[in-house]
């Protein structure tokens, strides 16, 4: 039941700064698409188009179309709350709320008007299981989320995003602040989640992109330089810039 995502000729300006330059691409349901490229090239900006997170920033101007399942998410009259329920997001650094573990997961349900206690309890348990965190926290759901380790906090944030049952999951360098063991747990999780979700992930870690993704897009200075299957991009890239980047010659 996941959806096709496509952008057509998308430009984004932060004031006068042209941050995304005519980006067009299409992402398939139930796949993982990785966005790679040197820092500042616009990966996060592009990712944040899909849940309209860029709306929060003053003086942002966007042109072009961003379709999810054939509907332009930037059209007038689109319900942003509805959109964000459909498109979950996991951030670069774990950012749990100053609440209990349970309340962190329940948050998305509560703000969307769910009050049924049993429903919430079931969903909290299921989300934590999906995020492979249940076994570690099931006895301390009433403890503050800040008591968890960094890696656990990030899986908590994933569970929190999953609790409102999105169909698309945006992940902005979700493992960059974590140790190798936590990172591999997150990567396993991404593999698992792919069955039910369409995942877009920003990463600056080439091996990670190669391990977890089906398709890879290489960004450079606001341009989409190359987009193809991960296998193609990593084995015979068409563009010399892509080749230089993935072989570590810059970036």
């Amino acid at each position, binding site marked *: 039941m996941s959806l096709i995502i496509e952008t057509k000729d998308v430009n984004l300006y932060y004031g006068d700064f042209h941050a995304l330059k005519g980006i067009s691409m299409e992402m398939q349901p139930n796949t993982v698409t990785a966005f790679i490229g040197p820092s500042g090239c616009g990966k996060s900006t592009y990712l944040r188009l899909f*849940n309209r*997170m860029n709306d*929060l920033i003053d003086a942002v101007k966007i042109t072009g179309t961003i379709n999810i399942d054939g509907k332009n998410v930037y059209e007038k009259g689109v319900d942003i*709350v*509805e959109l*964000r*329920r459909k498109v*979950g*997001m996991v*951030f*670069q*650094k774990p*950012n749990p*709320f*100053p*609440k209990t573990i349970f309340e962190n997961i329940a*948050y*998305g349900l*509560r*703000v*969307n008007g769910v009050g049924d206690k049993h429903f919430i309890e079931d969903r909290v348990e299921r989300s934590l299981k999906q995020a492979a965190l249940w076994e570690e926290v099931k006895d301390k759901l009433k403890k*503050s989320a*800040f008591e968890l380790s960094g890696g656990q906090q990030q899986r908590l*944030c994933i569970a*929190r*995003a999953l609790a*409102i049952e999105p169909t698309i999951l945006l992940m902005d360098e979700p493992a960059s602040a974590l140790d190798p063991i936590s990172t591999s747990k997150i990567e396993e999780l991404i593999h698992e989640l792919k069955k039910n979700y369409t995942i877009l992930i920003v990463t600056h870690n080439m091996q990670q992109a190669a391990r977890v993704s089906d398709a890879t897009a290489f960004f450079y200075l606001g341009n989409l330089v190359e987009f193809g299957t991960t296998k193609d991009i990593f084995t015979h890239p068409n563009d010399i810039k892509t080749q230089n980047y993935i072989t570590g010659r810059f970036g």
Partner: protein
Amino acid sequence: MRNSIKRFVEKISESILFLSSTVTTLSVLLIVIFLFKEGLGIFNKDPIEEGQMVVINKNNPIRKVVSADIKNIFDQNITNWKQVGGKDDSIILFRMDDIGNYFTEEQLGDTFQFVPQCLAKLVDSIPGIIAYIPSKYFNKDFPARELPMEKITVGSFIKGKEWFPTAQPAAQLGVYPLLIGTLIVSLGAILIALPLGLATAIFMAEIASERLRKILKPLVELLAGIPSVVYGFFGLVVIVPFIQQVFHLPVGETAFAGSVVLGIMALPTIITISEDALRTTPRAMKEASLALGANKWQTIHRVIVPYASSGITAAAILGIGRAIGETMAVLMVTGNAAVIPHTWLEPVRTIPATIAAELGEAPHGGLHFKALFALACILFIITMAINLFVAYISSKNKMSKR
């Protein structure tokens, strides 16, 4: 050569820094010691002005009385010794002014040299007498008994229901009405200032545009810089008449007027500190909330305010602290009646206002003077407790946010 001069200069500036910090610490300590030395001076003393005493007939079997009883006796609210645990005999009051009623000028002598003998005769002859006399007349031959009375204790000072330090012969040193006055005014102030201040802080931190915020912020800071007399004056001219009219009161000078004025005065503290606290909420935390489909209001009240809650608590407590210590403005608008208030719309008197109003008329070093210092000690302890509490909250907060 150069180097040794440099080292010399360094040494000098080091000692200057050391000296100034020592001087500061010492003067703070000195002030506190001085405060408590004077303030503690009232305890374990009779509530009678030094150099005076209250005596009774030597056959009067009365046991200890409290200072409120003495006042009631001299106010003629108590007229029989039975009422204070003595035997059934009516009380005859005697003050030095009354001496002319008992003796002629001749009997007293032309230079009043016979006064002691006259007093002795008087006290000895009237069984129900209670006399307030200078203690110089009371020697071992004087045929009377000093009225046994309860000393002033910390308990009687704090729980005493009446503040009338100039009452003769026995000063009434009960802080309770003043304490209640202070607390009711401050509590009211915080009830007014906290919602208003928090709303303003939220508006400034989360809703106002950067341009509007740049206008509002200095304005709020300006509010903090206005001298308190000006607030008091404003309260007296605007708020007091307004309250009087709205509630149809005989006088507008009430605890409520004090609360309103103090509430306005506490606003800058509350706004600035809670706005700072709100603005420390990480952007990522707000984005996480919005990304889960929460709207702006849900994000504010479910994430941002809880995140800043300890800062907001600190702001509220510091606001109370400011209100509790404030003197001038409260003095001007609360009516200064040292009675225990039953509603918000009655005149009250706060501790700082009492000190300010009475210090000028209290004889230096006397009981009243020392009692005012004891009041200052209480104020000091309250504010100290408040500051410690704030420090505790913010340290706890730092720990929980790792």
